[in-house]
């Protein structure tokens, strides 16, 4: 066991950090997200040049063959800077779909565009009634010759309004709640019968509703077994949660840093408010919540690739609980300790607060995952 970064990992961390420090201060971030696609294409290209999009893919597919730890490093840095570019949607989520479901030919056709940053995919899974249980997907994919025909609605598709294509999870058999009978389909944005309506999110990003009216998916765009997509979907979810945990930790770290700096500088009653022990203890509690969250983000990264599904689920859920609780505690107290400026749009802290709130609700909040851990009998040791 070794918590030190390898040379390659340090290199990734340093290069991302350097770029973000130069190009992604809070004011720059506000400019980036005001650009047309909802993020900066220039930054997106810089990420590509750093090789960040290659991280999770096998070398055979043109990737770096790196894993969850490298993704964690990138996402943590993104969390600190509140990066709005669609890395999670395109590289982490649809990247996982391609790695776990697509054939070598399909990967050869799709991955290079993702690695270069010329194409951006979004993962369309959510529907009005799925909430936190992806097995409740209902949208139908009907057999049509060798391929499938998609009809129905997808919603809350992160970065779906500007994506160049989608990986869509839809039902080929069974009923909502069945894990069997789900498939993954690659659909280009310009597919006949697909329409989308973009919207802004609470945390400064973009997303879309998608409407499928008899969208034809040819056989070669079916990713893996059209009735046996569940294991891949479960892995996409696990990897997305692990990445979100890391992002949340980066953001929490920044909130603790900003808050500590603020209370040292802000004077009331003639002294810096950091002189008050009640605030010192609050800041200490925030720090503890951060370190516990960091530990669980690491645990999530080390468990994301776990092949035993029960062990993986317990670990990922446990991490999501910790991140949700720590993020809420740190976020609420960071705003509280900032006082009035904490509730203004001009100040960075408010944007971290909103991102934390949305991360908690993504793929199940702390209560949801606590129930999952409890239902599985707790965190049984499997060493």
């Amino acid at each position, binding site marked *: *066991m*070794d*918590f*030190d*970064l*390898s040379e390659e*990992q340090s290199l990734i961390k340093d290069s991302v950090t350097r770029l973000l420090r130069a190009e992604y201060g809070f004011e720059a971030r506000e400019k980036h997200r005001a650009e047309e696609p909802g993020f900066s294409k220039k930054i997106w290209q810089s990420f590509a040049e750093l090789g960040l999009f290659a991280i999770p893919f096998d070398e055979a597919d043109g990737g770096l063959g790196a894993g969850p*730890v490298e993704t964690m490093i990138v996402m943590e840095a993104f969390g600190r800077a509140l990066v709005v570019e669609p890395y999670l949607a395109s590289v982490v989520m649809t990247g996982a779909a391609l790695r776990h479901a697509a054939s070598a030919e399909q990967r050869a056709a799709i991955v290079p565009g993702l690695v270069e940053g010329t194409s951006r995919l979004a993962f369309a899974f959510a529907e009005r009634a799925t909430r936190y249980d992806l097995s409740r997907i209902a949208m139908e994919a009907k057999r049509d010759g060798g391929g499938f025909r998609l009809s129905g609605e997808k919603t809350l598709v992160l970065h779906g309004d500007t994506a160049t294509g989608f990986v869509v999870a839809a039902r080929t058999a069974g009923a909502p709640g069945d894990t069997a009978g789900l498939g993954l389909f690659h659909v280009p944005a310009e597919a006949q019968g697909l329409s989308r309506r973009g919207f802004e999110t609470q945390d400064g990003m973009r997303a879309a509703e998608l409407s499928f009216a008899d969208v034809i998916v040819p056989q070669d765009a079916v990713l893996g077994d059209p009735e046996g997509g569940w294991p891949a979907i479960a892995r996409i979810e696990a990897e997305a949660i692990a990445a979100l945990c890391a992002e949340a930790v980066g953001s929490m770290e920044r909130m603790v840093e900003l808050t*500590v700096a603020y*209370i*040292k500088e802000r004077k009331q009653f003639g002294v810096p408010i*950091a002189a008050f*022990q009640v*605030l*010192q*203890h609050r*800041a*200490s*509690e925030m*720090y*503890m919540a951060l*370190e*516990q*969250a*960091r*530990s*669980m983000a*690491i*645990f999530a*990264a*080390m468990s994301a690739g776990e092949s035993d599904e029960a062990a993986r689920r317990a670990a990922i859920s*446990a991490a999501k*609980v*910790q991140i949700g609780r720590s993020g809420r505690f740190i976020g609420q107290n960071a705003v509280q300790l900032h006082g009035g400026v904490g509730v203004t749009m001009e100040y960075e802290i408010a944007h971290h607060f909103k991102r934390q709130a949305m991360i908690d609700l993504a793929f199940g909040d702390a209560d949801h995952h*606590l*129930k999952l*851990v*409890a*239902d599985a*009998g*707790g*965190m049984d*040791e499997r*060493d």
Partner: protein
Amino acid sequence: MDLKFTPEEAAFRAEVRAFIAENVPKDARETLRAGRHVSKDQLVRWTRILNDKGWSVPHWPVEYGGTGWDPIRQYIFLDEMQRAPAPQMLPFGHSMVGPVIYTFGSDEQKARFLPRIANLDDWWCQGFSEPGAGSDLAGLSTRAVREGDHYVVNGQKTWTTLGQYADWIFCLVRTDPQAPKKQMGISFLLIDMKTPGITVRPIRTIEGGHEVNEVFFTDVKVPAENLVGEENRGWDYAKFLLGNERTGIAGVGATKERIRRLKEIAKAEPAGTGVVWDDQRFREKVAAVEIELKALEMTQLRVVSAEARRGHGKPDPASSILKIKGTELQQAATELLMEAIGPFALPYEAEEIEGRNEPPVGPDYAAPIAPNYFNMRKVSIYGGSNEIQKNIIAKAILGL
């Protein structure tokens, strides 16, 4: 970054687990499993078994009897000891005065005391706290006056854990009341408990047990050779000692063992038409503790591996997190055990009547549960109260 234990580390864990399973005295293990305290005799027997194996003081430098294990292996060893469960080594010699002696003591002190600590030939206790000096330890007033080749000690120590069995006590005493800062006039003395003028009075703690004592010193003559390091430098040695104390204090393995037991009991205790464990809310409370415990375990491993990198000796202020979270979770586990047993927490059974002829009231595992809940309130108070730990985080880490 490689977050899995290496095959060598896994093999080491297996070796430790097997050794403990084969060698820990069965009676001691049963006592611990039942949530009771081990006896002096049980602890001495187990310490000597470990010492014969060369494992009683694994974290000490090899020249004084340590194993040379890296911090990860030490962590694995401790974790296996706690989860077995096997009696924990008596900390006062093993983790407190032992490291002070081999770091700051004279060659004579090292030769005289260290082997006897490793074999538990000497039972040590700690003389730090006083009635007027708790969290503000440097405010202590026990006086030691140099007279020729000895010191004369007068004063009172309190909260002296297991002092009733002790052969020796290590004490912080005031040697220079005129020092410009109160921390600067303190010395570190080793005192033989058989010296005339020492009296030990038991304090009965909240659960009814006898774990801690008051120790009174009246004109106690202590040979000057029993001074550790330099006169008036005792505060430095005490800070070193307290920093070491915090890293072992999280008790992750022990809390895991308590939760294992908690689940067993919750699955056996009748509630409604089923058992306590059927209650979703109860299971979620247990899961919440387990999740925080997993996070703490990872935090502890991070602290341990940072220590491996930094080199031994300098305590990491992040170990304050281990103290705070570790003790909160120890308390949470004992609290949930009491909720699991419910009304059968009620009957009081004095520990002294262990060999009772009467059948227990309710299930036989019930008796220690409420006393443990009561007793464990101490953990967030001792070793630097959790509030003091928050001060340490605020100052040493956050720079507030």
